């Protein structure tokens, strides 16, 4: 899975679909017109597995998040959940809050996505004790 992330970023993954209002869009891991297109579920599962690595290190977390944010999609709640738990294992509260800010920024003009994500993540946020940027007053200048 680590290699998979490398392969994705090194090919640039430029064959991205235009962003749709849905949370994630189909993504081909190679730019083949004849090859197999990865389904949304496979994409999500791959990323959940990536962040679920028990001994994930800080570099892998950063690399994963930066790559994920580079895609033309807002990550599913389960991927963000997995990433937040990785932050917990790394004792990195700041990164957890940053991840929430980043996915809100990814949603762009689609203002309904972020509240939905927070709603889905609420059990995890309560369990891990992560405050949202709104609760900390960070969303105001």
């Amino acid at each position, binding site marked *: 899975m680590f290699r998979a992330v490398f392969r994705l970023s090194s*090919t*640039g993954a430029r064959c991205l679909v235009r962003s749709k209002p849905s949370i994630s869009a189909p993504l081909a891991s190679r730019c083949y017109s004849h090859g197999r297109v990865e389904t949304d579920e496979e994409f999500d599962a791959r990323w959940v597995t990536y962040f679920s690595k028990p001994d994930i290190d800080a570099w892998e977390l950063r690399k994963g998040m*930066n790559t994920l944010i580079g895609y033309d999609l807002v990550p599913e709640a389960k991927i963000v959940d997995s990433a937040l738990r990785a932050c917990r294992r790394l004792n990195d509260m700041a*990164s957890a809050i940053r991840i929430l800010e980043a996915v809100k*920024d990814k949603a762009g003009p689609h203002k309904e996505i972020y509240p939905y994500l927070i709603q889905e993540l609420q059990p995890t946020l309560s369990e891990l004790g992560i*405050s949202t940027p709104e609760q900390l007053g*960070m969303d105001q200048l």
Partner: protein
Amino acid sequence: MLHLTAGHVGSLVARRATVALTTNSARMASHGHEVSEAVDMSKPMYWDRREIPLPDKRYKDILTPADKSLKEKEKGPWGQLSNEEKLALYRLSFCQTYPEMNQSSSEWKTVVAGVLYCIGLTGLVIIWQTAYVSPPAPRSFDAEWQAKQVKRMLDMRVSPIEGFAAQWDYEKGQWK
């Protein structure tokens, strides 16, 4: 204004040209009389970018004892951290929040003003040039010459269908 427009994700590694000055790294070598250190670009750098939520290094390198104890507390349950502590932890790792990063500036007004000013200055220079530098105009620019030229063009029926002579009413002897 050193930021490049971030369009390409695949070049994460290549984006070493953008620089964000951190509190602990020194200023770029610009003044001869100050002792200044250049930013070491071979080491991981910090920058606030929308598309790179977690930069290569933490913002604050030098931690005070209070910061260190906060970091120790971070290893425990996060529910025990107060909001101020959570904010302090964030500010240790990051310089600007996303809203701060994304805020627009009024720089464009200065840029437009500067551009218009330069264009105005150039205009003044050109006016001065036509008055004092340019040689007299050729005689073919005289009004009388131009009138004869137009008459000749009409007699030649220059562009008679849709162009020049088409605009002239030959019966009435005037422009249409």
